[in-house]
């Protein structure tokens, strides 16, 4: 019987072609608009490190004071050098890292006569384990190398391809900005999106870093941050040493804490540290610290661009209107056939059967709308670039799950919209219809 209803439904698509076309178009547009904006939203709001996002925390320490702080007395989004090194020395967490963005060039050599860009980070050894950086060759460096300020460097697969044709380059030397470095590891392609670990210098979406070098060495070489740098009050530094002692925030810290007890104890450590600084006269305000995990940090830093949320909400509203429209049109389409329904009811069809038949018919309309919507979605997703910057637009793509979702949403939404019109159809009075015919 269901197959028969389905056939009836498909056949009825051709009846009232205008009404049907209107509904199919409305559903197609509605579902496509929602799916296109959803594909972007899904990409920008995903959890980039789901298995560890609850164990990674970024500490903040108020070194500016209530008068200079961000709105709501929020401390700086990164640390100054003094606090960053103090956190590293205290070693109050199982794993911890501090880092900042560096801009380097690979000097000409071999067949290359022009320098090559190499952006990346000056990090400490735990960076690689904490963020689960995958390695193709070699590995990161050790804590001893951190202390020894080793000239070690980890390079990306892409840079390894450019410099060594993709071969295992561990142990090879490269010249970065006039200094020699030994390659200790080559990463697999690794560019979590959003870039949760560096929301201070990036908005969460940036090209893959090329290199990672030893933090202490970068400091020794007076390597200036290539990312953000934010300061308060009068700036009077004249050299690297006075810059390091300034209140400029430019270093991002992360710690790994496995249990709630560890989190509580680290929070206490931060508060104690700030209290100590207050006693020492460096801060003349009460301790004001934060400890946010990955999800809280992404939320605070507003990784999802407002455009993405607004367009998703507007598209959903658009879809709802399309469905309201569909309810009205289905009502017209079904009730137009009151006569036919009356005959069928008189011949013994139950209300349940009429109800099922019309819901299935609506389902076929939904399916047709979904297929049309899929075409619009495919076209839309490939032109998301007009709406979002390229780094974000690249993330939106039509995969199997989106295809399935588009069809499913179209059919379910249409069937839901058909509940009332089908109910009305099922309640057509057979006697009435027969009499007037």
């Amino acid at each position, binding site marked *: 019987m269901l197959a028969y209803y389905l056939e009836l439904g498909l056949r009825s698509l051709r009846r009232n072609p205008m*009404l049907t076309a*209107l509904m199919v*178009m*409305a559903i197609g*547009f509605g579902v496509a*608009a929602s799916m296109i904006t959803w594909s972007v939203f899904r990409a920008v709001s995903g959890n980039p490190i789901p298995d560890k996002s609850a164990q990674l925390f970024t500490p903040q320490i108020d070194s500016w004071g209530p*008068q*200079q702080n961000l709105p709501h007395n929020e401390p700086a989004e990164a640390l100054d050098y003094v606090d960053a090194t103090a956190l590293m020395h205290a070693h109050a967490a199982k794993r911890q890292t501090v880092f900042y963005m560096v*801009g*380097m*060039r690979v*000097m*000409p050599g071999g067949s290359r006569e*022009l*320098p090559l*860009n190499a952006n990346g980070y000056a990090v400490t050894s735990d960076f690689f384990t904490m963020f689960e950086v995958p390695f193709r060759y070699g590995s990161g460096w050790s804590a001893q190398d951190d202390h020894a300020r080793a000239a070690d460097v980890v390079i990306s697969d892409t840079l390894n391809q450019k410099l060594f044709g993709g071969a295992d380059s561990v142990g090879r030397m490269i010249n970065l*900005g*006039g200094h020699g470095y030994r390659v200790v590891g080559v990463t697999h392609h690794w560019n979590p999106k959003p870039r949760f670990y560096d929301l201070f210098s990036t908005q969460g979406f940036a090209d893959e870093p090329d290199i990672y070098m030893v933090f202490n060495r970068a400091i020794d*070489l*007076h*390597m*200036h941050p*290539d990312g953000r740098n934010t*300061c*308060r*009050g*009068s*700036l*009077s*530094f*004249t*050299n*690297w040493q006075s810059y390091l002692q300034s209140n400029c925030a430019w270093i991002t810290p992360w710690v790994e804490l496995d249990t709630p007890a560890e989190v509580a104890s680290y929070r206490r450590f931060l508060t104690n540290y700030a209290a100590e600084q207050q006693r020492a006269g460096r801060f003349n305000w009460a301790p004001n610290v934060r400890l946010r995990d990955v999800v809280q940090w992404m939320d605070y830093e507003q990784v999802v*661009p*407002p*455009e993405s*949320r*607004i*367009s998703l909400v*507007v*598209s959903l*509203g*658009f879809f709802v*209107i*399309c469905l*309201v*429209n569909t309810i*009205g*049109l289905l*009502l*017209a389409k079904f*009730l*137009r056939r009151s006569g036919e329904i009356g005959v069928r009811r008189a011949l013994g069809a139950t209300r349940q059967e009429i109800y099922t038949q019309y819901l299935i018919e609506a389902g076929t309309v939904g399916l047709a709308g979904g297929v049309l919507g899929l075409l619009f979605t495919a076209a839309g997703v490939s032109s998301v670039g*007009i*709406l*979002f*910057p390229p780094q974000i637009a690249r993330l939106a793509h039509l995969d199997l799950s989106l295809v399935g979702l588009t069809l499913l949403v179209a059919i379910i939404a249409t069937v839901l919209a058909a509940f*009332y019109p089908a109910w009305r159809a099922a309640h057509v009075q057979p006697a009435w219809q027969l009499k*007037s*015919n």
Partner: protein
Amino acid sequence: MSLEIKPILVALRRHKAGTLLIALQIALTLAIVCNALFIIHQRLAIVSQPSGVDEADVFVIANRWADTAQSTTQVDAQVRADLLALRQLPAVRDATPSSGYPLQGGGWDNFVTMTPDQTKPTTDAAIYTGDTHFIDTLGLKLIAGRNFRSDDVMVMGTQQSITPPTVIVSKALADRLFPGGDALGKSFYAMGTTPSTIIGIVDTLHRQGVDQWSQAHAGQSLIWPLRADDSRGIFYIVRAKPGQLATAMREAPKALYAQSRMRLLDLKDSIQDYATIRHKVFDSDRGMVILMSVISIVLLAITAAGIVGLTSFWVGQRRKQIGVRRALGATRNDILGYFLTENFMISLAGVALGTVLALAFNLWMVTHFAMDHMSLAYIGVGVLVLLLLGQGAVLAPALRASRVSPIEATRTA
């Protein structure tokens, strides 16, 4: 044509569902379209902000040094040689070094205070560094005071903080700091211990950023007479002679490579003209305009189509009634008027509800996205558009109804 409001109301009660659906659709459409129009208007205002730059002739070179360990003296010598080479190019009118450029997206800004020990800043200014060629290169209009002289220009090394004693400010910054209009010769502090004295005022100079923070300090910029000899790199802003932008953009990198090859000029954003810069920085704003326009147009079309569909159905259902009325003496215009009035009343209910929804939606966006409150004019326009749309949509089925012949009254249907 008499307004038959009471019989219409009675008739509407007979098909409550259809009436409610049309009214609801009009209400939701109004809510979305008003807000979309508001977003479009706001974003268009952002996208068309003037930069103050002679955008047709100016381009920017992001010059990164290969040797990041160079001393300030080495960098400065190279920068001066580069500038000389650029300015000598036949297609080039002028060139300046700079720390950034208008509409760059992000960039350098400092808090501004009136006294050195003031903790709460008076405002925030975007900072540009440049030499005596900055104003001419960008094509800025000096409206008061003088340009920098070569003895004003200082050299600033990497991560060094220097506050020059002389500064040229944008009119917006001058007006913000000295509302009396007497900014020239006055001084202020921009996160430095020494004051900067205003020696010149330029008309419009957009900030590097276009984000919310920058919008709140729109157009407040200052120029410091500094060559910022950062060991990582520097921006060269170049102004081509009229009509020679393309030639200048081709020649410039060659001239720079001829000075030294130890630099990076081959990245995708190394050399950009202002059309590209503007396009890039307003990407998402332009995208919002396109998306909201498409959604509004499709939405209005779908709403109109829905009204046509349902009204046609009603007309079909009521052919006999119409025939009876015609037989009883109603003119074609009476029938036409009936359906137009009916739609008008449904639409009125719809826009009334829609106004509330539109305001609620706007309020939601105000609280969640720090958006401005929508002016009532948008609702006015939206209401008018939807009422007209409703009347337009109902016209065809209503005309068909008016052509129903009185003979229909005798048919059984």
